[in-house]
């Protein structure tokens, strides 16, 4: 296939890369970051595994589970592989403590790792194969995400879910040893299931699309393995993923330097369970507290200067549950609630920002307490 032809066939080119990729071709820095990605993933899943969304999902869907062959992270119950993939993706994402691919704002691990974990309990898989599959899954979802950024997200697509399903399919497909054709079908079967709306952020519905990205990506690969066909040009076709779900796709993002540069190498991990726009504020407050030994009673006023998004996303003195997203568009979570202490549990939220409290923060805190939300702040 000539260069000019492959340019017009990014889906095929990506499938070819995924099918051919060898563990020895993956550089050390990508392997190292993959382990950090998985550590962060399992940690966040352990933290989220008893969230109300998980309990409700288990109650509603548990009666339909198949043979309990796969682990639900942090829990004693087991489930069929597809359901375990769903639940583990929800657990990992529900506390807003994810990893983030900053260029696309995809949270790469939540859709990909659960698909791979669940499959590893059905088939004999070695550790390097698992790591390799995760690296390739992240590569696929982030490259596809880059191709449709920024118009895709701007239109209201929740990119972690919409692109995550491709990542899960790519990763599971690699573990299954799919050839190029079947990998292409797996990507096509993923495209047919790509979904997730920004509007759902702040409600439990967000978890459906993130969970489904893992579950349906795994299903896409299992179907392809059996010969279940997908379209020829799932991403770039006239009515393909990119054409339908974005305005100006740059397919070069999918094919350029494939196998030379690795998306997982630029994965980042949240130190605080909130949107990235708040990180410098929290850093600054902690820094001042540390340096000057500040205690709440000493503080008369706190003034923040920063990116305009900080005000847009976080200046909400009285957030309403339901109306105010738990996590707002653009990786930026609604911060007042994220600064408030968790009230639904006895133990404090780990690593939650301990801000020197101003009067307004105190007020906010007590308001939150009075509202007695049954959910953790995101």
């Amino acid at each position, binding site marked *: 296939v000539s260069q000019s032809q492959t340019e017009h066939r990014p889906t095929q080119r990506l499938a070819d890369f995924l099918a051919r990729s060898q563990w020895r071709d993956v550089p050390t820095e990508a392997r190292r970051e993959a382990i950090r990605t998985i550590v962060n993933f*399992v940690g966040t899943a352990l*933290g989220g595994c008893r969230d109300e969304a998980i309990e409700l999902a288990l109650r509603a869907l548990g009666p339909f589970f198949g043979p309990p062959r796969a*682990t639900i992270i942090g829990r*004693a119950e087991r489930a069929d592989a597809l359901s375990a993939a769903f639940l583990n993706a929800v657990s990992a994402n529900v506390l807003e403590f994810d990893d983030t691919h900053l260029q696309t704002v995809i949270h790469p691990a939540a859709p990909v790792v659960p698909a791979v974990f669940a499959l590893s309990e059905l088939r004999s898989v*070695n550790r*390097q194969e*698992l790591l390799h599959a995760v690296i390739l899954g992240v590569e696929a979802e982030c490259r596809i995400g880059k191709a449709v950024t920024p118009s895709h997200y701007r239109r209201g697509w929740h990119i972690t879910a919409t692109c995550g399903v491709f990542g899960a399919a790519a990763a599971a497909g690699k573990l299954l040893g799919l050839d190029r054709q079947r990998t292409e079908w797996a990507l096509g079967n993923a495209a047919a299931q790509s979904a997730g709306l920004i509007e759902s952020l702040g409600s439990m519905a967000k978890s459906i699309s993130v969970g489904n990205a893992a579950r349906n990506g795994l299903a896409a690969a299992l179907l392809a393995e059996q010969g279940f066909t997908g379209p020829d040009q799932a991403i770039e076709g006239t009515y393909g993923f990119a054409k339908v779900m974005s305005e100006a796709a740059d397919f070069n993002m999918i094919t350029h330097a494939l196998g030379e540069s690795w998306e997982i190498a630029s994965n980042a991990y949240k130190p605080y369970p909130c949107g*990235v726009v708040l*990180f410098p504020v929290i850093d600054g407050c902690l820094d001042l507290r540390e340096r000057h030994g500040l205690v709440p009673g000493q503080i008369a006023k706190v003034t923040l200067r920063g990116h305009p998004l900080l005000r847009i996303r976080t200046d909400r003195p009285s957030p309403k549950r339901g109306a105010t997203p738990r996590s707002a568009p653009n990786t930026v979570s609604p911060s007042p609630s994220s600064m408030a202490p968790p009230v639904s549990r006895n133990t404090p939220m*780990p690593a939650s920002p301990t801000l020197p409290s101003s009067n307004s923060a105190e007020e906010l805190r007590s308001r939150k307490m009075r509202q007695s939300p049954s959910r953790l702040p995101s």
Partner: protein
Amino acid sequence: VTVETTEGQRLETHVTAARGTTARPMSDAELDAKFRELAAYGAPTVDADALLAALKMLGEKGDVSDVVKVTGSS
């Protein structure tokens, strides 16, 4: 961030690169600490240290089922 204290002191700091971004990545030690805290918070019956050690061996040879299974709680 500017903090004014009740004694009229003005304390200022300017953060140019936030923790947890590629410009100032979380260190391995910070990630491990995050892992342990989250495990203690959501799944206190899981042996976090053993699991963390197992996850760090993922780049090595060997079967993976023992690693994935221990992510569950007994």
